[in-house]
């Protein structure tokens, strides 16, 4: 495929690797010339070395900035290439299902378009099918039904080694009898890359990951964190179409995990590549991902950026999965009285905001039971100032929940209070460290009403989802 790039604002270059140089490139050049010829000031033909290949490069120098042309000629450009950089993959999964011999469905109807260069994360509890999906993308598992497209090629039947992907495994899968250098070089060696090239790439990757001093060691002589870096180093030397990572941080201790999270985020920016990342840790998901796919029992629950997932979960599962400590769930009755809609608990009631009440009534929940979801950080003590200052419709007697505190957890910068409300309700609340409440006390916790979520009791869907 020829590559069509804008450099600065008046340069357009067209280049291609050896395999792509043919009819496609020639027609690209010809067509560019025809389109831009009024503004072409000069044309240059050069050759430059990339990956030990010499490539011809055609450059058009324009009189005016080319960006306007870029916008006007998007269709033309999309036919011939992308804006800049190496070929990255658009990966699409269409109705992908995975069924095992016993009849169990590990993955059901997985539909996802993975965009170029994004760090997309599959997250969910154990057994939700996220690793299985990743392995199907890699080719290590067969796709029972559905399609996997990469770059407009149907990849279902393509062997893993021909998919040009790279994978980091949970247990790192380092070759125990090879040194770190040889581990990283393996993928290139089996593809018969030139030794000089191999050396350059390995050393570069080692430099980026700060493991250059470990190149001669064997995996047995490495710590967990070092092994993890070697595993990541092995995938970046290959410059694949996409990087797959299967729970890479799960075998590290908490401190190292936090460190490596930052490293991976930095790496993503540095590599500017597509990364598909699997984890069961929602903190990792929230901090790393550009988009997150929440899965449960083989099905996608929601695909959205982290903030969206937090603010607007599609159902009770997503709401309860994202955010730590988990959201509190209480079953309450909906009562309409004097024009206000109330949520009735045992000994307390919460007035709904206008739009919330409206939506509830629209969907016909008046007089029914719903599940109320409140995040621990949205519960406030009377003495502490209410976050948004919204008092509901009636002013002072606005929403609070009566809780008997049973446990107080001191976390250093904040305090977690756990308690019971009514017979069966359990609540947790996050308080600043100055909070003095002790177990055994009764507390009124004021609810930040705009932040609450309401879920249908049967379907568990978010009634207020938008």
């Amino acid at each position, binding site marked *: 495929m020829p590559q069509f790039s804008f450099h600065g604002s008046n340069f357009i270059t067209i280049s291609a690797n050896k395999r792509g140089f043919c009819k496609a490139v020639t027609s690209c050049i010809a067509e560019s010339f025809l389109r831009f010829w009024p503004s072409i000031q000069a044309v240059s033909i050069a050759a430059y070395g990339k990956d030990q290949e010499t490539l011809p490069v055609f450059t058009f120098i324009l009189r005016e900035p080319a960006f306007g042309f870029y916008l006007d000629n998007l269709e033309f450009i999309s036919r011939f290439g992308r804006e800049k950089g190496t070929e990255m993959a658009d990966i699409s999964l269409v109705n992908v299902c995975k069924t095992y011999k016993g009849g169990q469905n590990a993955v059901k109807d997985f539909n996802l378009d993975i965009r170029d260069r994004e760090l997309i994360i599959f997250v969910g509890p154990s057994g939700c099918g996220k690793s299985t999906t990743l392995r199907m993308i890699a080719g*290590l598992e067969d796709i029972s039904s559905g399609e996997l497209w990469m770059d407009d090629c149907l990849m279902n039947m393509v062997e893993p*080694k021909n998919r040009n*992907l790279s994978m980091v495994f949970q247990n790192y*899968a380092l*070759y*125990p009898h090879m040194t770190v250098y040889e581990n990283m070089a*393996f993928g290139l060696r*089996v593809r018969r890359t030139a030794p000089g090239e191999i050396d350059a790439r390995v050393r570069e990757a080692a430099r980026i990951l700060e493991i250059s001093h470990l190149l001669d060691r064997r995996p047995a002589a490495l710590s967990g964190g070092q092994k993890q870096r070697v595993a990541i180093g092995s995938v970046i030397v290959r410059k694949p179409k996409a990087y797959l990572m299967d729970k890479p941080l799960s075998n590290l201790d908490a401190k190292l995990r936090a460190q490596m999270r930052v490293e991976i985020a930095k790496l993503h920016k540095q590599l500017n590549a597509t990364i598909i990342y699997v984890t069961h840790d929602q903190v990792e998901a929230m901090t790393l991902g550009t988009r997150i796919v929440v899965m449960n029992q083989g099905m996608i629950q929601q695909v959205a950026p982290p903030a969206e997932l937090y603010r607007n979960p599609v159902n009770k599962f997503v709401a309860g999965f994202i955010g730590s400590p988990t959201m509190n769930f209480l079953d309450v009755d909906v009562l309409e009285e004097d024009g206000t809609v109330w949520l009735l608990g045992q000994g307390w009631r919460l007035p709904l905001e206008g739009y919330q009440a409206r939506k509830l009534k629209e969907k016909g929940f008046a007089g029914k039971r719903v599940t109320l979801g409140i995040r621990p950080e949205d519960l406030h003590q009377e003495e502490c100032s209410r976050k948004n200052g919204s008092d509901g419709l009636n002013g002072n007697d606005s929403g609070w929940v009566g809780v008997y505190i049973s446990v107080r957890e001191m976390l250093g910068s904040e305090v977690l209070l756990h308690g019971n409300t009514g017979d069966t309700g359990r609540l947790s609340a996050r308080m600043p460290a100055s909070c003095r409440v002790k177990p055994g006390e009764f507390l009124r916790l004021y609810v930040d009403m705009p932040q609450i979520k309401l879920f249908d009791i049967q379907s568990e869907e978010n009634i207020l989802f938008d």
Partner: protein
Amino acid sequence: MKSDSLLKKAGPYGYILPALLVFAVFLFYPFFKTIYLSLYKTNKMGQAKLFVGLGNYMELFQSESFYNSLAVTLLFVAIVAAGSMALGLLAAVLCNKAFPGIRIFSTAYALPMAIASSSAAMIFKIMLHPSIGIVNKLLGLDINWINDPKYALICVALLTAWLNSGINFLYFSAGLSNIDETIYERASVDGANGIQKFFRLTLPGLSPIMFYTIVVNIIQAFQSFGQVKILTQGGPGESTNLIVYSIYRDAFFNYRFGSAAAQSVILFAIIMVMTLMMFKAEKKGVSY
């Protein structure tokens, strides 16, 4: 009380006592006695009569028969080690991934280890029979295997290799199962095909167990006796006169216990040196 604490102190030694006693009488004492005997000429009863110092050894180092035994033994050990390991490795690789009926096959491959060398030798004797033996019939040849100085050693060696392949199969199977499965998956994604995976991952992964197996095989091969006694009795023309058999003949047919003892000592020294050399090689060669 003093006797109590003494008993307590002696306790641990007491548990080792039976084993140590047997070792002392039947292993340590005879070992030194053999060295002692090798310095003497003996009578028919095995009593040391005449002190000759290194005389027995000198005689051996000047005897053609002894060098022949050495050469034959070394060649034998090489063939046995190579053959049995190749067969064991092949069987282990074939039985590595589960498939229907794998139990039957793995039992079959390990079976030779339960068979006595003498029993096997008798079976092979018939198999190698020039006119009615199955080997000649299957290959369409007419060679008198056991009585031909060219082939006799190979026959005994292949028999021994067959006997040892059972235990090698078990060792290699254990070694293969010690290799982490996920590195094969990673190699798949990295771009390796089956052959590359075998030579770059499987064989190096087996190297620790291979070392151990070679040592065990060699030590065992040096001690082969039953096959020789039944198949060839050292012949034809000394072409299968392994050192062990030569020791047996010297001691119990020629009643030259002194000379036999000297040969035993030399054999022991050879095994020692080879084992030490291999341990040294392991430090350099075996990666892990």
